[in-house]
């Protein structure tokens, strides 16, 4: 143990910049991974309640340690390579899915200008990163040398590419109103004296709905989870995966869901702003002021709502048929978004909606 | 910051009108039954006519060059003349091809729409005042052309031609872009007039190499699009493989636009270096004359023969550039217009003879045409004589003007080479005439003419026009001269 600590000391003192960079990199990742574990537990619990079951309740208090137990089990299992599979790509695929989904977190702010990278083109960066994630799925499907996996990958690729367009347009309408691509600026543009009516969900109501639905489709979650489609193609693109690579896919999926749950409030529901902003002016104590002044607890409450909505959808809706998904994306969402981008442009041009307080 | 100026829209009114009309036709065509396709046909013709009227009405005063969108778009005499003839030849394509398309299940709205979009691209191309507009206009034209060549999906020859056209066309666009990027690197501007002001090849110029490379690529890209040897490989296959209606378009209207592009790029932007590009064009012209005329002799397929004849005509066209002065450009423009009108007759005749399931594209298919229908044999003979450059037809005076420009430039040997090859070329044009008049027909029945009376009338008129313009070529040449003479005088 001492030698490990000594080695750590040596490393930090010899490469201070590198250590700091690594530390900064780990800073968002560790909470994210723990968050994913909690989210999986919460999903199973909520679905359990909806099914009038208990959900996980044996490992740890309220079954909280259940996910960790599952993860350790997966990590210790053997990785099975399918016959005639392309081993390099087979292992590269989960990483290629994971890296963009983690990289996207770099620009997520949790307070005014509090982000790992307060990039100017943050919104574009997010779009770019989420569009890269589909490679992991396609490669997994192809490298597995399995028909089910290939079918799942094809479905997923078509679906993600289609819904990205609608998603992109809804982000465009947000940036038209906010006049910035910086996520922190976008939240600040929703500040004002009219409480929650200053947020973008009101002028962009159709876009808000479309954004979140597209987000659900982008993450391949129910009711759009045809990429996995247990009843038709077993488990879709990751049917051949086991052990740690499977855990990585699992982690990616939940990290992406949390990402979408963060973006929906940041873009449309005022991020960390309080829904009663501008209505109450008081200074009581730092631990209650955030209720009207806004702060990260509000953001996390909103995120919690959307994350739960994901679970709620999964428990409520039957799976869409594939052609219905495509129809919804191309024939319903994209036309609506195109029209609403124009409407948003008018709102901005004629000054019906102004950015900022 | 540069502001948008609404007056710019008025400057490009003909183009905007054509765009609006095309979009309207696109929408109307969606709701038409296949039996009502004639509506699209007449609407397209009406759109071309109205655009032509607008171009004519808004023709700028002599010598004026009106710039719009920060010099991206220019309206001057050259653009007006070229646009009028681009619209005219596109209209001929529509008029000639209706029955032909109907017989081949190609009578679809997309044919008209793609041609209209291509026309728009050509109008932008000949009006371009900026390297970006040149490139985009060209792409609008060529992208539509690729699709048009491939329109007959069930024909393997057609698909092969389209793929060849696409691959080589994309290569040519790449070369052109490469040259443009070098010129941008050397001059720091994309505006043709500004490049003209900066680009010279004097020894103390800091960017000599870069400009030289850029110029070479521009010349190569333009030669590809014109079909000058040794960048002609795509031409015979495309001419033969494409539906004849599309061949007519590629061979007439788009050659006029390619001339406009070459002039804008070489004189408009690189005019200061004309000493260098005239040499390159001289080599290209001689090669084109030689390859075009010699290879045409060996052809039995009329469309392929006309393709090689196009190559030789492009050689003549480039000779006009060798002069590097207004009179030379005017001669070249006169030549390209005459070529487009002659090619229209030749391809129109092929379509006249074609039936469902019979292309009439072999020279043998014209055997004994005189016995079957003397009038159209006469029209074809006029076209062939005119293409060969026999006096007193239109083609003769076009060749004469170009040769005059070459001799004025002091390039006597080029003129001699051109005359020698023109005489060699006489052989294969006259062979068609011989086949029509002296060979026995396969079937001696009277030629069954297409139902479309408009087609027959316009084709006859087109043929007679070659005769009429051969007699009274003065006004047209004068118009071409005026377009350039003044354009060269105004300070750029």
């Amino acid at each position, binding site marked *: 143990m001492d030698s490990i600590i000594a080695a750590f000391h040596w490393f930090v003192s010899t490469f201070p910049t590198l250590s700091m960079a690594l530390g900064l990199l780990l800073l968002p990742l560790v909470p994210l991974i723990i968050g994913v574990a909690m989210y999986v537990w919460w999903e199973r619990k909520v679905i359990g309640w909806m099914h009038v079951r208990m959900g996980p309740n044996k490992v740890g208090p309220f079954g909280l340690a259940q996910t960790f137990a599952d993860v350790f089990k997966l990590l210790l299992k053997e990785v099975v390579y399918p016959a005639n599979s392309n081993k390099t*790509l087979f292992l590269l695929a989960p990483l290629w899915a994971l890296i963009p989904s983690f990289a996207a977190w770099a620009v997520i702010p949790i307070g005014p200008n509090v982000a790992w990278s307060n990039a*100017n*083109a943050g919104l*574009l*960066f997010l*779009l*770019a990163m989420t*569009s*890269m994630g*589909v*490679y992991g799925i*396609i490669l997994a499907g*192809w490298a597995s040398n399995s028909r089910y996996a*290939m079918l799942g*990958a*094809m479905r997923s*690729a*078509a679906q*993600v*590419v289609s819904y*990205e367009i609608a998603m992109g347009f809804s982000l465009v309408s947000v940036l038209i109103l906010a006049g910035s*691509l910086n996520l922190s600026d976008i939240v600040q543009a929703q500040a004002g004296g009219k409480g929650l009516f200053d947020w973008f969900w009101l002028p962009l109501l159709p876009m808000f709905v479309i954004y979140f639905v597209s987000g659900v489709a982008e993450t391949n979650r129910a009711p759009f989870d045809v990429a996995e489609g247990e009843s038709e193609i077993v488990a879709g693109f990751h049917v051949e995966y086991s052990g740690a690579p499977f855990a990585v896919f699992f982690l990616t999926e939940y990290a992406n869901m949390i990402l979408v749950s963060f973006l929906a409030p940041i873009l449309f529901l005022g991020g960390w702003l309080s829904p009663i902003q501008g209505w109450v002016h008081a200074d009581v104590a730092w631990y209650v002021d955030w209720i009207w002044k806004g702060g990260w607890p509000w953001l996390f409450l909103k995120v919690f709502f959307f994350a739960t909505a994901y679970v709620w959808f999964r428990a409520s809706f039957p799976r869409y*048929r594939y*052609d219905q998904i495509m*129809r919804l994306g191309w024939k319903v969402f994209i036309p609506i978004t195109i029209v609403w981008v124009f409407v948003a442009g008018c709102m901005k041009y004629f000054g019906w909606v102004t950015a900022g307080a | *910051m*540069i502001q*948008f100026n609404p007056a710019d829209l008025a400057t490009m009114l003909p183009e905007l009108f054509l765009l609006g009309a095309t979009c309207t036709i*696109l929408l109307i065509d969606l709701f038409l039954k296949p039996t009502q396709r004639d509506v699209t046909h007449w609407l397209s013709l009406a759109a071309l006519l109205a655009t032509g009227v607008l171009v004519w009405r808004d023709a700028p005063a002599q010598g004026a060059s009106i710039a*719009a*969108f*920060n010099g*991206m*778009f220019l309206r001057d005499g050259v653009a007006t003349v070229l646009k009028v003839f681009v619209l005219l030849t596109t209209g001929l394509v529509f008029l000639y091809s209706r029955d032909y398309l109907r017989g081949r299940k190609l009578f679809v709205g*997309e044919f008209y729409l*793609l041609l209209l*979009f291509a026309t728009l691209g050509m109008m932008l191309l000949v009006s371009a005042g900026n390297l*970006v*507009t040149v490139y*985009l*206009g060209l*792409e*609008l034209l060529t*992208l*539509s052309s*690729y*699709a048009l060549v*491939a*329109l007959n*999906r069930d024909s393997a020859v057609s698909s092969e031609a389209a793929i060849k056209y696409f691959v080589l066309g994309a290569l040519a666009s790449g070369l052109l872009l490469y040259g443009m990027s*070098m010129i941008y*690197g*050397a001059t*720091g501007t994309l505006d043709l007039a500004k490049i003209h002001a900066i680009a010279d090849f004097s020894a103390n110029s*800091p*960017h*000599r*190499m*870069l400009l030289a*490379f850029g110029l070479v690529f521009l010349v190569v890209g333009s030669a590809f699009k014109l079909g000058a040897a040794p960048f002609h490989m795509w031409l015979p296959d495309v001419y033969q493989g494409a539906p004849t209606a599309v061949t007519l378009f590629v061979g007439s209207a788009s050659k006029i636009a390619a001339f406009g592009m070459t002039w804008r790029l070489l004189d408009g932007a690189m005019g200061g270096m004309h000493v260098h590009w005239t040499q390159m064009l001289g080599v290209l012209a001689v090669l084109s004359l030689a390859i075009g005329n010699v290879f045409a002799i060996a052809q039995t397929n009329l469309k392929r023969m006309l393709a090689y004849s196009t190559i030789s005509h492009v050689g003549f066209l480039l000779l006009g550039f060798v002069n590097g002065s207004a009179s030379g450009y005017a001669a070249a423009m006169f030549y390209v217009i005459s070529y487009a009108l002659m090619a229209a007759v030749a391809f129109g005749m092929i379509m006249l003879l074609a039936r469902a399931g019979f292309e009439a594209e072999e020279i043998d298919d014209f055997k004994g045409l005189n016995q079957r229908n003397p009038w159209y044999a006469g029209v074809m003979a006029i076209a062939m004589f005119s293409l060969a450059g026999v006096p007193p037809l239109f083609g003769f005076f076009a060749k004469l003007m170009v040769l005059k420009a070459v001799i004025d430039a002091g390039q006597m040997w080029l003129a001699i080479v051109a005359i020698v090859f023109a005489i060699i070329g006489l052989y294969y044009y006259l062979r068609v005439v011989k086949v029509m008049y002296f060979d026995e027909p396969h079937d001696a029945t009277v030629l069954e003419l297409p139902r479309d009376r408009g087609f027959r009338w316009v084709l006859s008129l087109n043929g007679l026009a070659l005769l009429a313009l051969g007699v009274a070529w003065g006004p047209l040449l004068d118009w071409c001269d005026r377009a350039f003479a003044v354009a060269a005088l105004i300070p750029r």
Partner: protein
Amino acid sequence: MSFQLICFYAFAAITVGAALAVISVRSPVHAALCLVLTFFSTACTWLLADAEFLAIALVLVYVGAVMVLFLFVVMMLDLDLDPLREGFVRALPVGIVVAVVMLVEMLGLIGVRSMQLPAPPEPAAAAGMSNTSWLANALFSQFLLPFEVAALILTVAIVAAIPLTLRRRTGTRTQNPGRQVMVQARDRVRIVKMAAEKPAPAADKTGETTP
């Protein structure tokens, strides 16, 4: 040598290496993936040049959409590239000549560069705005016409794609799932009210043995 310069050389080397791999690897899927890497590292070099919008747009459009479809097609076709590669060695000398010519050209350009005047200041920085908004301003003012023409070219591509690919086969039997779902009970079952059948009178009894 600054950190940026090291990054530039690293990304440039990856770009060149990946581009070489695109044309030299055996499997088409690997080639497509190498092309993805080429695009990505190119985007990184652009980021180093402060062209953030172009860099991210490259990743978004080419890596995120175009190459996905490309990969999709390559995987579906299961190409056998060996016949296509047969001419590779034969064409190699020509290819090398072309490459050498290009290289000489590039050297010519570098030779030019040494004589070049200092680069003009970066317009976005000079205007005091971010690269993205400067680009937007330029596109929608100075380059408005080309921008619109580019949109027109995309329209042409769509119009052209329809006659080239849309094929209505006659005589094929396909389902229309949309209509299937719309079906209602009354389309399938017809409930008819009718009087109950009464047993036939006794005279018919003889026929009962032979149903």
